[in-house]
């Protein structure tokens, strides 16, 4: 082998060209090449059968030649600088940082790239991969564009947020009536209940979803991000956006994420400081909780209720649905509008340095502003109270939480009307409310009428 690589005859470029032809031409060359090789390398007897070795040595030769040439060039340029044009060309090729790749080729210079850096953007096009620096560059240029159009990013979850789906086999006898009520798939823009027989599924869009998308699209660049698989996500996008005006190639499914069972903003080409997320599952967004607006789950089908452990009758069984004007989507749209106007209109001129996460926190803090809460028999004894999720939630909503009653307290949160603090609340004419009052306020982004959340008498006294 060493003999072959070192022999001066083979470092000529014509040999190189022959090797190139071999690789490019059709199957005939495979038959003829050993002969050629044999002619070329008469000195070597072992060559006959070993095509692989031939190829390998060819490759080595080529590399060697390239190296030789480049060193030559360098020497020349340093000594005299006569062959300027030549060096310029080579510099231009070397300088490509390979910002990203499509099908394994750099999309700037067309060379093959091997290294596996960056993030795959399979939801845009199969084989597209973008390096981290390029992502940063795209994000910052896009950001300027976006702010000029007074828009932010909005990531939307599908299941339980915008719609509810069930497998046809999971429909119970009480829900069979839905099959006859399903809307036509010919013109999906009008209907809200669809039977997708080819996917064995039935899908109910959440009430108000169409006006919601229409209005939100004026304030946001919208993405779909679902834990469902890709075909399902695309099918749902078709139902939600039949004219394809909102989610043009911005549908991300679980196949596109970088982490299992997690959703991440790394596959979204938008700066985190301008992204809002609507989702019903907090755990999916562990790294981006500050961007998240948690949604009340939409359970239309009985199977979906059961899946989450509710034993109540589903909306479909009750032949009922969420209200259009006061449902979860309508209330969240108000919040989005509020955040949008705060971001662009109320906070001065420095748009570039603004962070929507801060704005989100400020809006949230207005909800229970001025309320002083005391909890009674809500936390287990010995549980560090300020670590409980209700406590934290109340503080995020702008309320002040206390451990003991005092005259400034406005609300007592209790599950039991018989406790000392509850009785104190009744006596002092303070509000006595169920913990669900806080949770509901958190979901609906609005302080709720206290009388809707009475505290029942305990089972103990009954």
């Amino acid at each position, binding site marked *: 082998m060493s003999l072959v690589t070192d022999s001066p005859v083979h470092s000529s470029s014509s040999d190189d060209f022959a090797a190139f032809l071999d690789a490019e031409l*059709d*199957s005939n060359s495979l038959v003829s090449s050993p002969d050629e090789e044999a002619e070329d390398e008469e000195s070597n007897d072992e060559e006959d059968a070993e095509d692989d070795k031939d190829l390998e040595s060819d490759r080595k030769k080529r590399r060697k030649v390239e190296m030789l040439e480049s060193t030559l060039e360098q020497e020349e340029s340093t000594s005299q600088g006569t062959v300027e044009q030549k060096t310029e060309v080579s510099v231009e090729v070397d300088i490509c940082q390979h*910002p*990203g790749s*499509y*099908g*394994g*080729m*750099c*999309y*700037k*210079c*067309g*060379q*093959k790239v091997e290294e596996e850096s960056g993030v795959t*953007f399979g939801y*845009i*096009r199969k*084989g*597209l991969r*973008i390096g981290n620096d390029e992502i940063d560059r*795209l994000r910052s*240029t*896009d950001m300027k*564009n*976006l702010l000029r*159009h007074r828009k932010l990013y909005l990531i939307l979850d599908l299941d339980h947020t915008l719609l509810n789906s069930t497998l046809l086999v999971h429909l119970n006898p009480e829900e069979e009536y839905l099959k006859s009520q399903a809307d036509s798939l010919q013109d999906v823009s009008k209907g809200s209940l669809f039977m997708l027989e080819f996917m064995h599924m039935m899908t109910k869009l959440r009430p108000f979803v169409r006006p919601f998308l229409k209005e939100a699209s004026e304030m946001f*660049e919208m993405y779909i991000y679902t834990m469902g698989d890709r075909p399902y996500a695309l099918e749902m996008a078709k139902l939600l956006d039949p004219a394809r*005006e*909102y989610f*043009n*190639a911005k549908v991300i499914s679980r196949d596109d994420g970088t982490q299992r069972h997690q959703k991440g903003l790394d596959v979204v*080409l938008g700066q985190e400081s301008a992204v809002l997320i609507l989702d019903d599952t907090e755990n999916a967004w562990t790294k981006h909780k500050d961007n998240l607006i948690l949604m009340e789950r939409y359970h239309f089908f009985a199977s979906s209720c059961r899946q989450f452990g509710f034993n109540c009758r589903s909306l479909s069984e009750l032949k009922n649905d969420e209200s259009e004007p006061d449902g979860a989507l309508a209330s969240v749209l108000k919040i989005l509008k509020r955040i949008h106007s705060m971001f662009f209109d109320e906070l001065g001129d420095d748009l570039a340095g603004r962070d929507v996460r801060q704005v989100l926190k400020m809006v949230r803090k207005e909800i229970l502003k001025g309320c002083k809460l005391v909890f009674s028999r809500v936390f287990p004894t010995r549980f560090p109270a300020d670590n409980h999720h209700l406590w934290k939630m109340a503080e995020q909503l702008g309320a002040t939480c206390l451990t003991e009653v005092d005259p400034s307290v406005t609300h007592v949160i209790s599950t039991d009307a018989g406790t000392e603090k509850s009785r104190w609340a009744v006596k002092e004419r303070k509000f006595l409310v169920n913990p669900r009052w806080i949770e509901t306020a958190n979901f609906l982004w609005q302080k709720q009428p206290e009388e809707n959340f009475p505290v029942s008498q305990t089972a103990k006294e009954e």
Partner: protein
Amino acid sequence: MFFHIVLERNMQLHPRHFGRNLREHLISKLMKDVEGTCSGRHGFVVAITGVESIGKGLIRDGTGFVTFPVKYQCVVFRPFKGEILEAVVTMVNKMGFFAEAGPVQIFVSNHLIPDDMEFQSGDMPNYTTSDGSVKIQKDSEVRLKIIGTRVDATEIFCIGTIKDDFLGVINDPTTI
């Protein structure tokens, strides 16, 4: 580039097709199997133009299937580095645009779009010059140069550029 070449393939035929129409069955099956596929070596098989010869069939033990070696002429399409192609834009986004020339998907990144064209988002994303005279959007026809190809067993990836003389939009759908 298109090529008219002769290829060979071993076809398996079910015994129920044996009879007068054996040859027709064999050819229709060949068309169904081969047309529209892609091979790493030859590129896309666009159409079969004729059958040169059908060899002797070999009966498979157990199944009764018969294998025929078939030689056929076909038109194949394979893009090459440096080739100039005319393509239709299928998708425009902030990274660049995708275009297709027949079965071949070509990606032109924003690095290889002339610097005076800027991305405009919206429900019809596009690249437009500052004076608005040239616009690339979905369904535009462009002339581009291939600067890189990778041919897989099943598909062909191409990188293209329009940052060169005489390249770019050749037909704008909005002006028709």
